[in-house]
């Protein structure tokens, strides 16, 4: 017989508390019943629609994950929630926009500078000329996008460092609530500054032609037997996987891995973990606290900038308040995964994105209520497992 007391957390059974287990059982039963009805009885959506939901969720989730990484890093080291993080992302996105606009203005957005070089190499290797042209075009594209990324990340990094110097450093000795309020103030300031500088009208990213938001691979999913002139053919339904979506997902995983390496394997990471564990002792050990905190914000700024450019390339829509809602959701994701935990932020982000996309469909809820779903999940996690799903702290060494 399974010993429930050993598996479930202690608070379930503390002082005769029966409310939580009952709630958990009722809720799980309800969820399972809904899932059964949607998936097997009503069958509103075919497998291709579920795949579309999943893809949309994964991509959105990966953007949330990158932003959440920034939140979690700052919280892990300073125990402070940087509410202006969304605005740092917004500024990175705008920088990427202006970079691409500059390229477009100079007519260089689709500039195939690498073409001749690659074709030369291909001719030397004896490869087909078509493949060479394509490779050349892609190489040129990579440079343009890379420049947009680098500039966006740079501006975000500078903003984050400036934010730390002006809004947070003077308040380091103050009670925990004060830097929080300062963060909210900084967030409002950056939103309005962006509105004054860039105007309130929404802008749209003009991607290079190869990276058009409609272009991508078409997958054939599910389908049915269709008769064509007496012959029955299995025809799958098309699902589009956009190039920008794949880039977003891959970049976010890459950024997480890089961050993990930074925190676990480098000297700066070691210093960050030391400051996270005990600020005073670390100072006594000779670690420059100010520099470490500055570095932390710089890294979080880089991440936010990358997230901003990814947002712009994939979603396309840009306005001064674009950072607010994703910032809030990313914070939720960080808490969901365990704030202070890098892998937790990534997991939390993707989970939240997938829940937002698949949740309304699975539960038969209207899509209008997806935010209700997302924040309800947060509330439930905070009730049943306040330390988050992976619930560890940044300072612990993992090998």
């Amino acid at each position, binding site marked *: 017989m399974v010993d429930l007391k050993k598996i479930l957390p202690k608070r379930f059974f503390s002082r005769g508390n029966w409310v939580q287990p009952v709630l958990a059982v009722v809720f799980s039963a309800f969820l399972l019943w809904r899932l059964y009805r949607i998936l097997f009885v009503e069958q*509103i*959506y*075919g497998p*291709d*629609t579920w795949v*579309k*939901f999943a893809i*949309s*969720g994964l991509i*959105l989730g990966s953007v949330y994950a990158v932003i959440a990484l920034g939140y979690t890093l700052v919280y892990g080291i300073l125990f402070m929630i940087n509410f202006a993080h969304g605005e740092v992302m917004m500024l990175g996105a705008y920088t990427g926009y202006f970079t691409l606009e500059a390229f477009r203005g100079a007519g260089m957005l689709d500039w195939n500078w690498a073409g001749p070089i690659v074709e030369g190499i291909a001719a030397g290797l004896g490869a087909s000329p078509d493949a060479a042209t394509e490779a050349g075009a892609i190489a040129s594209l990579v440079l343009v996008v890379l420049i947009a990324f680098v500039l966006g990340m740079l501006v975000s990094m500078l903003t984050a460092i400036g934010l730390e110097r002006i809004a947070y450093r003077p308040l380091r000795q103050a009670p925990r609530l004060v830097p929080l309020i300062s963060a909210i103030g900084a967030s409002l300031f950056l939103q309005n500054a962006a*509105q004054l500088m860039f105007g*309130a*009208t*929404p802008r*749209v990213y003009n991607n290079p032609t190869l990276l058009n*938001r*409609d272009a*991508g691979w078409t997958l054939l999913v599910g389908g049915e037997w269709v008769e064509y002139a007496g012959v029955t053919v299995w025809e799958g*339904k*098309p*699902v*589009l996987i*956009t190039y920008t979506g794949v880039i977003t997902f891959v970049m976010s995983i890459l950024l997480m891995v890089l961050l993990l390496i930074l925190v676990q394997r480098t000297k700066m990471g070691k210093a960050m973990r030391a400051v996270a564990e005990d600020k005073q002792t670390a100072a006594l050990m000779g670690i420059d606290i100010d520099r470490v905190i500055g570095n932390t914000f710089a890294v979080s700024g880089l991440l936010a900038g990358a997230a901003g450019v990814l*947002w712009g390339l994939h*979603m*396309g*829509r840009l*306005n001064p*308040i*674009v950072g607010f*809602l994703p910032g809030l959701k990313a914070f939720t994701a960080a808490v969901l995964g365990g704030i202070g935990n890098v892998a937790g932020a990534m997991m939390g982000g993707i989970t939240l994105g997938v829940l*937002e*996309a698949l949740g*309304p*469909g699975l539960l038969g809820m*209207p*899509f*209008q209520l*997806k*935010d209700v779903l997302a924040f309800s999940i947060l509330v439930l996690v905070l009730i049943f497992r306040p330390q988050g799903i992976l619930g560890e702290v940044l300072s612990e060494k993992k090998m």
Partner: protein
Amino acid sequence: MKTLRRMSVAILIVTLAAMVLACGAQPYECTDEWGCAVFEAGETIKLAYVGPMTGDYSAFGVDISRGVELAVKDHGTVQGFNIEIIVEDTQGASEQGAAVANKLSADSRVVAVVGHTFSGSTEVSIPIYDKSGVVMMSPSATNPSLTGLGSSVFNRVAFTDEMQGQAAAQYIYETLGARQIVVMHDGGAYGQGLAGVCADAFEGLGGTVLGTEAVTPGEADYSAPLAAVAALDPDLVYFGGYDADAAVLVSQMAGAGLQEAMFFGCDGTYGANYLNLAGSSAEGTFSTYVPIPESEAFSKFRTDYQADYGQEQGELSPFSPHGYDSAALLLNALDKVAVKSGDQLIIPRKALADAVRATADYSGLTGNISCTAVGECAAASIKFMQVQGGEWTEGPGQ
């Protein structure tokens, strides 16, 4: 004794005469139910415009406010007192609408409001203005229920969504030939109301509404709800909402599997902003427009608009002539009820509201305007536009 009696009588007569003279020279007493706004010499009369001046939907606010400015410029002064336009920003949100209404009600020099612009923010402001007695003339709030709230201050020159939804359903069924549609909206008073009217009218004509899907406004990714709509395989998607959200929807429709479906918007999705944001995805999509009858006044309006603002009238939104007419109607009523008393100008609030409601046969830019007892003052009809070659052109079959 006789002298004393004569003197007393004389004093009595003089006193009585003085009282009569004083009565005649007494200032105008405000007997209006809702009070009066009193302006001293040199003060300006405040006319407010409320709309989304910043944020995603700023095109509408900016465009209509320009109409208001031109109207005030053309009208000049009211009995020698200048009109000052106070522009308030709601960002298209209902909560802001209530906050702005409270702010304007507290200012005793605000006598009338051109607004609000969006139905959602208008709905919440009507009870606030009702209480403070500030008359409203909305250029663009089209939700049908607004004039059914029993308000004595709310009026509008815009058409109602009752009319727009039914005309759209008819156009979709008869001219475009769609038989199965999905109705989408943004959950706001305007979008949801309009979508509901269109769905009912379409079913009444014999078509099928496969489903209704609501989206959260302001998001950048609607691929999940669009995937759900694509699973229903409709001929056409009808959307009630504003341009910024419609632009995201059309951009993501093809990717979600709705390449074959047509997209039909509304007056909220019309404008240059929608074309900019949606780019090539907007090709072939529809929306509603208000055609203005040709007249000398309209030509002058177009020239003035181009000269003052460097943009063509009708580019940002269909409602700048409505902004002009709203302001002009309010000023016309002000002229009628304002009383000059000495150096002061006194404007009785209820009399002003009644004068606005009693407008009959007023020749405005949008047509010949007469207000009904509930405040419907619409004159213009609607037309459907389609994006062809990156420009808004008249839709087929009209």
